[in-house]
């Protein structure tokens, strides 16, 4: 019996750490609607700074003072980030902030290694909480008891802050309706800044308090960020009580789950999230998301099919690309193939995200399923390459059909998180089911047959498929189905009121996107000759998101451009420097600030300006006049 009590308390201690970080994320999202990918980075910086301070200053005061000072210092960094970066992009398309904070995260991961060195750092234990308390023969670390008490205290303080102060009332109002607060004449800017600072403070505090239990290292952020998102979503976005309950739920399920299923931890949170979201689409304590009001002034250029000239130009570009093998070496061709494959991957997500308004955070699942499909067919059934390429993507198609059915019942961030959960479930199956998938050692030896083996042949294959896929999806964008899909994105209410079965349209789009991603994955398996769980992993899903956002989520060809720029840059940087994350992150942040509509979005604006400044027909005349003025 005593054991179960202690296990329960241990779970509570884990929950408290999780809650601290999650509450900050929840607050930030609730008010600013920012999907703050950098939350884990702030957590990590909190731990690093606290490590430095607590090593530098001795005694109890040195320790506790160091922890609080670290959290405050990081909050200040947060304020800076908010003012310099986020303020510029609140009005950018939804999720663009995700891109910005993702860039920041990349930078921070390299920066901490530059500043604190590569070694794992182990800080000292908390003065006064070094030992354990005996509980009927079981030991409970006293620091755990401290954390268990801290969780509810923080919850209480936050509750008071929100219920009893004017600031809190404003924050709650903003959580419900941003525009209303603006209408009340409240300085929205500073409200957001302060909320961001509080959220970051909590993240950094959570990180700093890990010092007595954990090692401080440069991958702490990734270890926690996904889990924290999951907790926030299970609890219901913006609900702090929800975050608390979810943290307890997840931690306790883990603490007791491992007694029966010792391998459950790897997937537990995602299973819980999937179940919760299917049963309660807005999380345990969440409310249905108010339909996001379109930001005024954010009118999108109406989409149109390419004109004849543009088609010819694209064809010419394709021909030039196809001539690459005439002058490029094998390595360049292989890189070209990889870029072409990522174009396929990116346009498939773009179709779902830009056309359908459904931002999947787990799109790699279908890419990877396509890859595994090929690997199974080639290695187990020994089928010829062409058959594998045709049938392999069907695995992606089937995965998308099953998961998509549940996912499209949700929308917005909840949709995104459910897709993430599904992707993680698929990932962990690939990771765990060693006898079939080879686990993380993957499936090797999936090499192309002779006709496609040479780099130039494979390049032509990849380029050809990429061109076909891009054209096919583009045709679909301007097909009746594409119109219907955009309709469901723009207004569910109106589309249902004109006879559109929105869920079925979205489901179809999901399957199309999943199958297309599967095609990319199938080619990828042959390009690399092997398949690994990585091919279904979060980081690949994030890559896809970044490519689409970078290209421009509101544009038709953003996926293509984003994939080419991001992938080429990424490959080049990884090859040239060990600090590729720092440079790539910096580049992304720069793009976010300078081109808040993405690369293609920016090009469109420039083209529009040019068109406006020189009225058609009078351009010859107009120019000298203008310059004369």
């Amino acid at each position: 019996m005593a054991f179960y009590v202690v296990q329960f308390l241990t779970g509570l201690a884990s929950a408290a750490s999780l809650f601290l970080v999650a509450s900050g994320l929840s607050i930030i999202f609730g008010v600013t609607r920012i999907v703050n990918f950098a939350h884990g980075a702030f957590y990590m910086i909190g731990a690093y700074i606290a490590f430095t301070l607590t090593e530098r200053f001795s005694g109890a005061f040195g320790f506790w003072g160091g922890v609080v000072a670290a959290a405050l210092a990081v909050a200040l960094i947060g304020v800076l980030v908010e003012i310099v970066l986020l303020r510029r992009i609140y009005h950018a398309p939804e999720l663009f902030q995700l891109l910005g904070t993702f860039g920041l995260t990349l930078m921070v991961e390299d920066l901490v290694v530059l500043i604190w060195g590569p070694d794992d750092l182990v800080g000292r234990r908390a003065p006064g909480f070094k030992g354990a308390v005996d509980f009927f023969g079981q030991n409970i670390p006293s620091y755990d008891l401290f954390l268990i008490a801290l969780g509810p205290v923080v919850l209480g303080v936050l509750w008071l802050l929100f219920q009893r102060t004017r600031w809190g009332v404003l924050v709650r109002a903003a959580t419900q309706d941003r525009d209303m607060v603006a209408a009340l004449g409240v300085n929205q800017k500073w409200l957001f800044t302060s909320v961001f600072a509080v959220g970051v403070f909590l993240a950094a505090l959570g990180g700093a308090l890990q010092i007595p239990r954990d090692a401080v290292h440069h991958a702490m952020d990734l270890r926690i960020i996904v889990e924290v998102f999951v907790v926030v979503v299970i609890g219901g976005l913006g609900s702090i009580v929800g975050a608390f309950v979810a943290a307890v739920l997840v931690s306790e399920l883990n603490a007791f789950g491992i007694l029966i299923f010792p391998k459950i931890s790897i997937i537990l949170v995602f299973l819980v999230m999937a179940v919760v979201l299917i049963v309660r689409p807005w999380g345990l304590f969440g409310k249905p998301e108010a339909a996001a009001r379109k930001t005024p002034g954010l009118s999108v250029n109406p989409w149109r099919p390419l004109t004849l000239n543009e088609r010819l130009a694209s064809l010419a570009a394709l021909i030039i690309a196809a001539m690459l093998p005439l002058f490029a070496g094998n390595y360049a061709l292989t890189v070209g193939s990889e870029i072409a494959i990522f174009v396929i991957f990116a346009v498939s997500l773009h179709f779902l995200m830009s056309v359908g308004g459904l931002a999947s955070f787990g799109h790699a699942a279908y890419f990877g399923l396509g890859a595994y499909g090929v690997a199974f067919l080639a290695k187990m059934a020994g089928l010829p390459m062409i058959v594998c390429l045709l049938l392999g993507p069907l695995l992606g198609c089937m995965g998308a059909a099953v998961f998509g059915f549940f996912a499209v019942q949700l929308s917005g961030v909840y949709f995104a998180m459910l897709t993430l959960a599904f992707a993680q479930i698929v990932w962990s199956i690939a990771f765990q089911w060693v006898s079939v998938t080879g686990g993380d050692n993957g499936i090797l030896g999936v090499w192309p047959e002779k006709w496609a083996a040479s780099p130039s042949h494979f390049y032509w294959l990849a380029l050809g498929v990429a061109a076909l896929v891009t054209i096919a999806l583009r045709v679909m964008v301007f097909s009746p189905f594409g119109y219907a899909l955009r309709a469901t994105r723009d207004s569910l209410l109106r589309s249902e009121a004109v006879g559109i079965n929105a869920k079925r349209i979205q489901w179809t789009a999901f399957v199309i996107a999943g199958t297309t991603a599967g095609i990319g994955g199938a080619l990828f398996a042959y390009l690399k000759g092997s398949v690994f769980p990585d091919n279904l992993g979060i980081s690949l899903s994030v890559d896809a998101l970044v490519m689409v956002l970078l290209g421009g989520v509101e544009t038709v060809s953003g996926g293509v451009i984003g994939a080419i720029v991001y992938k080429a840059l990424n490959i080049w940087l990884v090859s040239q420097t060990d600090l590729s994350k720092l440079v790539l992150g910096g580049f992304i942040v720069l793009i976010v600030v300078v081109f808040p509509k993405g690369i293609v979005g920016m090009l469109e604006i420039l083209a529009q300006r040019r068109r406006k400044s020189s009225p058609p027909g009078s351009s010859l005349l107009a120019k000298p006049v203008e310059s004369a003025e």
Partner: protein
Amino acid sequence: MRARNSFVGAAFALLAAGMGHSALADDIKIGEINSYSLLPSFTEPYRKGWQLAVEEINAAGGINGKKLVVISKDDGGKPADAQTAANELVSSEGVAMLTGTFLSNIGLAVSDFANQKKVFFLAAEPLTDAVTWAKGNKYTFRLRPSNYMQAAMLVEAASKLPAKRWATIAPNYEYGQSAVAVFKKLMSEKRPDIQWVDEQWPPQGKIDAGPVVQAVAQANPEAILNVTFGPDLVKLVREGNTRGLFKGREVVSFLTGEPEYLDPLKEETPEGWIVTGYPWYSIKTPEHDAFLKAYQAKYNDYPRLGSIVGYQTIKAAAAIIAKAGSTDTDKMIAAAEGISMPSPFGEITFRKIDHQSTLGAFVGKTAQKDGKGVMVDTSYKKGSDYLPSDAEVEKLRPKD
């Protein structure tokens, strides 16, 4: 318009990607790949190690009179990126052979690439047995003692313990799983009386140590096998210390004696764990002394195990090329099979039968000295003594 821009962009990217470093045509180029950005704490000392080797080799006149150049790439911890890097090194840089890799899956990916492209690959660190056995191939050699060898070394000591009730804690991925499987198999062969009372499989890098420690303690084993490492190990040790998990229990632990993993523990270092590792401070052989002196002189830092591996990888590569007298792949394979060479740990041989080197490891017990973790009672275990019989190896390895 937009599409055209995209393709121009692509062309630029490809051109940029096509440009490489310039090494003189006469130099011998070796390609090296590792997870520098993902695992800096292991790969930094490793890099220092191989850089030292390059310096020594060139100072001694290079390989057969030619200068050695190592071109190093980061794989970011992703098998797919490692293959891109391998491809760049082979196709674009024209390296004579590939070396490196730390993670097992990356080692396997590059090994498979080498097999496909008929390139010589000397795997430095990946531990999985598959590299030389189940998925071994003609082109791939491996330096570091494999999972099996480390397990066998530990079993030798562990089987002498009186403990009968054992629990295991291992990261939930191929490395952890196969480490536990081999250890259990070899232990059970020597000690049929042993009972396995609990197993814990925390996710790699994400251990929730409190509940894991409690769960193991609840099963009340007499001895524990640990396979976690890095930050997970730190958390496990801290929770285990506080909760008294290790009190009165024997612990056998993979790799924990390597400075990479032992040093961060400082005053948390548990006493008396039986571990494999690298006690650089207590090895008193002329070969190691020479290495240690050179390393400390160059970097003003002490070596980690990665330093040894990096150093010996390049030394081995150079020895193989020197013996082959050429950078022709088949000649290098022929030269490498059965080659013997000196190393800081004494003479090692790359076995013909499975391309595994006989580099060994140190087994000893953990202890604390001046607030730092050290290995005591250490002894060097030669790799050749901890490999299965040739007949068994024949069965494990596919015919090529």
